[in-house]
């Protein structure tokens, strides 16, 4: 497929949202998105985002098994919550502080599939880190997506700092950040939520609760089943949402965004999701999860569920579904081929960006080539 395209071709875009003419919000009783202000266009766009993310994600694991990328960490099972919640933000204007499973979140917020694949292949033009970080550490300055690090939960403090600046500078920006339920047991989570609560900051903290921190089950990670319980200790609402229910997630995101924009302060959203893969390509999850559990968890996959919901509402038919699926494949092919063909980082640049340009002295490597 992709082989028929030249490498220079511009990146195929997610067209799902613009294809079908009917842009009006559905009005039929119980129609998905009703009362949420989402048009069919929106819903199909959300569906496409999930489908494309899943296709990219699956491709990552194939590339890993094929020996082409040494490491994969991704978000299969988390995409519904990610797209649903992030869809409520203003792309590129608000701020996103992601974590390593945030593939769907950053795609929703403006990063492109090619950019995601560049991170897998660690290429020089990878906007996240120029190939310096492991895959999964996304960031993009032009989209207001802050660079991700590995130590968990540190980003919660960055998010509250961004939100503090937004409040002080009256920029009307909302900041959203993400972490796992395991990471919510780090001190930084506590300190960040407390500060957000004190200053009623326009920030949303999303805990993607997949029941495991690598192999450690929820019962050994947290003293409470619902991390959202902790919100009360920081004077903010704690919202629990089924992460497989895309529109419930959107609703939670939308309400939190509105609350933040109104100046009413932060929200903690806990999305109950499932981790459909091992923790990462370095993990063997069958060692601590039974086959039965893994089988059962499939029911919590947001993709087929959202698909069915849209089909039931008559928003999606066989043809449209096939079109989106083929578009997703095309996008993934393109992104993979394009990213793989990009040059590797030049070791001569390895000392760049330790310090601002012009910094000199022992301990500061030459920053110009």
């Amino acid at each position: 497929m992709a082989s028929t395209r030249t490498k220079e071709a511009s990146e195929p875009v997610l067209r799902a949202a613009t294809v079908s003419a009917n842009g009006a919000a559905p009005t039929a009783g119980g129609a998905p998105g009703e009362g949420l202000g989402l048009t069919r266009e929106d819903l199909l766009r959300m569906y496409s985002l999930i489908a494309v993310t899943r296709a990219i994600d699956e491709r990552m694991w194939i590339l890993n098994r094929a020996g082409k990328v040494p490491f994969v960490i991704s978000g299969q099972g988390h995409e519904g919550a990610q797209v649903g919640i992030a869809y409520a933000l203003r792309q590129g204007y608000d701020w996103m502080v992601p974590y390593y499973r945030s593939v769907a979140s950053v795609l929703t917020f403006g990063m492109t599939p090619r950019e995601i694949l560049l991170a897998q292949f660690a290429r020089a033009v990878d906007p996240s880190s120029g190939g310096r970080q492991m895959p999964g550490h996304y960031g993009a300055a032009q989209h207001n997506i802050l660079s991700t690090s590995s130590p968990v939960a540190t980003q919660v403090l960055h998010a509250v700092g961004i939100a503090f600046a937004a409040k002080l500078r009256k920029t009307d920006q909302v900041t959203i950040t993400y972490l796992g339920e395991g990471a919510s047991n780090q001190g930084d989570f506590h300190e960040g939520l407390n500060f957000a609560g004190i200053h009623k900051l326009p920030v949303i903290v999303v805990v993607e609760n997949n029941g495991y921190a690598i192999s450690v089950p929820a019962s050994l990670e947290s003293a409470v089943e619902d991390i959202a319980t902790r919100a009360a200790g920081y004077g903010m609402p704690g919202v629990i949402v089924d992460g497989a229910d895309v529109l419930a997630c959107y609703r939670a995101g939308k309400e939190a965004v509105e609350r933040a924009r109104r100046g009413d302060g932060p929200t903690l959203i806990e999305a109950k999701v499932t981790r459909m893969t091992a923790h990462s390509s370095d993990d063997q999850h069958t060692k601590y999860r039974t086959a039965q559990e893994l089988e059962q968890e499939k029911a919590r996959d947001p993709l087929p569920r959202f698909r069915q919901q849209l089909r039931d509402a008559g928003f999606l038919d066989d043809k449209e579904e096939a079109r989106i699926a083929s578009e997703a494949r095309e996008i993934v092919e393109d992104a993979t081929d394009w990213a793989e063909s990009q040059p590797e980082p030049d070791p001569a640049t390895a000392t760049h960006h330790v310090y601002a340009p012009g910094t000199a002295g022992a301990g500061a490597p030459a920053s110009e080539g």
Partner: protein
Amino acid sequence: MPIRTYIEAIRETLRDEMRRDDSMIVLGEDVGKKGGVFLATDGLFDEFGGDRVVDTPLSESLIVGASIGAAVNGLRPVPEIQFADFIYPAFNQIVSEAARMRYRSNGAFSCPITIRAPYGGGVHGALYHSQSVEAFFAHVPGLKVVIPSTPYDARGLLRSSIRDDDPVLFFEHKKMYRAIRGEVPDTDYTVPLGRAQVTREGNQVTVIAYGLMAAYALEAAELVESDGISAEIVDVRSLRPLDVETLLESVRKTGKCVIVYEDNEFGGYGAEIAAILAEQAFDYLDGPIKRVAGPDVPAVPYSHTLEDWFMVSPDRIADAVRELATY
């Protein structure tokens, strides 16, 4: 020229920079109404209000982490850590996050924050209000580490630090706050980061030091002068990046070197200077590289008998210079 104490120089610089740059904020424990436990931020709350002079919760990781975020979104935060000893809860945010933001994002993001913290002993602060912590941070690529030893430098270096686009650790010796006075011009001068200074010329022994020890080294030079020994004093000022050229030039001239630091000796910052000299000035050395540093115990004990035992003094520096001079 106006005379200022060390802490006055710092306080006025914070004020001036806040006047100059609306995006600058100060945050930390008790920096507001109280004006900081050493009064380094006294008056700022009244002038700039609680939005820009922020009393934070007692959470150092937050203080630094939120500063990083605020810097990313357009502010220029100058967080205060109440005592350098309490910087460790923020170690992860400083070392994993602030120091690496630029590098890990391949230059897409930066982290212009200046973390101020009082350090050092000799004020009955005991184990947890006396520590020297510069060695930890000076080891970390991506961080800049600055320690002034005069009111003039305090002002000029703090200005440069705040205006710098990288994270800077700015350590102030608390014993100097009120004890040290000096001329501080009212101009908008800066002292560039990354430059050491020869604060006294001499030709027999080079003494390299920073902070309170740079002041003590000058006193030691006076002491040995009466013995006919000419000591040259180099004030490091910028621990990272380090101005190796100025150090080398001095040691190549004198052939002998004493490195002084208050922190415990083993693995302390002065070890790096010794290592650089042992490689790059080897051919010029006429004697062993000596260190005068704190003993290897977990910081300064409280009892005055023990504290006196701990602290590096001008006398101890002078002794080392004398010993080396006759080598």
